[in-house]
């Protein structure tokens, strides 16, 4: 438990760096995890060359899901949309630096799903994006 709620995660939950909206954005997506009542909207802005210049999220959810969104978006600034498409489950776990039970993994991976769906400009969410 101490591990799960270590300082970095709580800090990103309580003081999110990437919270907000980008209007207009270049890539956006939103989805929910009905099991938890979690909701996440992500906006990505690019510089015209496919490099992410800004990334913001709005949402509600547990500390793990919100901190993971914040950490992920922070890490994406300066990377390309192509990099975002290649993100994997392991990238999220590395960012969080903790081990997660299967139920809590779903909380953490909502941000991965929504970010990749935005990068691919998908119309509908696809759970395969969480791999």
């Amino acid at each position, binding site marked *: 438990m101490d591990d799960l*709620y270590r300082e970095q995660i709580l800090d990103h939950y*309580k003081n999110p760096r990437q919270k907000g909206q980008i209007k207009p954005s270049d890539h956006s997506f939103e989805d929910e995890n009905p099991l938890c009542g979690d909701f996440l909207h992500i906006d990505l802005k690019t510089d015209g060359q496919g490099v992410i210049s800004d990334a913001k999220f709005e949402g509600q959810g547990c*500390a793990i899901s919100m901190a993971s969104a914040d950490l992920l978006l922070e890490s994406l600034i300066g990377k390309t949309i192509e990099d975002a498409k290649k993100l994997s489950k392991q990238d999220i776990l590395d960012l969080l630096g903790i081990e997660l039970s299967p139920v809590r993994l779903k909380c953490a991976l909502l941000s991965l799903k929504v970010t990749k769906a935005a990068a691919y400009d998908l119309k509908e969410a696809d759970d395969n994006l969480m791999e």
Partner: protein
Amino acid sequence: MYQKEQFKKIKSDFPIFQRKIHKDQRLVYLDSAATSQKPELVIQAMDDFYRNSNANIHRGIHELAEEATRLYEDARLSIAKFLKVDDARQIIFTRNTTESINLAAKTWGSTFLQKDDLILLTRLEHHSNLVPWFMLKEAKNLRISFIEITPSGELDLEHYGALLEQKPKLVAFTHMSNVTGTINPAQTITKMAHEAGALVLIDGAQSVPHFPVNLTEIDADFYAFSAHKMCGPTGIGVLFGKYALLEQMPPFLGGGDMIRKVTYEGFTVNAIPYKFEAGTPSIAEGVGFGAAIDYLESIGMETIAEHEQELTHYAMQALKDEKGLNIVGPDAEKRGGVVSFSMDGIHPHDIAQILDADGIAVRAGHHCAMPLHQHFNLPATTRASLYLYNSEEDIDALVRGLAKVRKVFA
């Protein structure tokens, strides 16, 4: 008669309380609305069945088959007696409450409901008393209306009275909500429905385990519940149905045991209740179910209800003063041992996770009642639910755990 002392010993009837959680934490089990723990007696009855009496039931002409049949059918008789049902043939074994409600919807519902017929449900329902009716509504073009609830989660009986003027064919409601703990006045609701010409189905998943239920007095046409929430095993539940209705209903699933005669041309159905019990049932689970009833009766349902009332008061009192904590549902005297709450700025998953580290098992989420959470405008809640083995120490542990939660998120 209720004696607090008596309940101190009850935990030792349940072997699971001997184990530790996360290496060295005492188990504080506050998730009995999801499933109850099992007493030694029930575990032993099932173990003994497999060791000494195992055989398939009905029709077998050997000692084991006859013994297994008797043990299984004895459970049916115990359940009937437990619920004050005079004719045990009205006790149909299913897998669980959900299957019981589906059975009623798929057999009675699809036979006797016609296009535009109205079903009344309540805002409090669990998904298992919503989705089977939604499926039937789609299949048969029915209408569904919802009995409103007050802000504290009690049924608005005035609104119910008004809805009854639209002549519904069925009123289906939960005897006790698994989210708000609200205990609905089952007998009054049933009487009003009958006077308006509607049949009644009651979801008793949370009621039968926790207080005396007299099905003759309530007079519902269908009543559904599960063994696993009342000290019994998973995989077995009951649908009570009035005999005259069961006679008119077509069978549920087809196969062995539900038939009287089969030819290459067709089949005739078996007698009630077997008509609704196709295939080899959960036999050992039936035996365990019977043992669970014996166990609960040895303590007494009145006594159990009193113990839970006391604990619920204690829990509500303890949680009421917690800053930023909001309890969903009515006052303690109007509810069973279920307390769902939200905490300002802290997601239920985080609450449950931090409590778990101290061995405290609660449930976080929508508790299979998404529409009700939407109604209260809550994405999810944390639920502590009580049973006979819980004590004031368990509530104290919860309160200490919540203080820790607040500290983490301060």
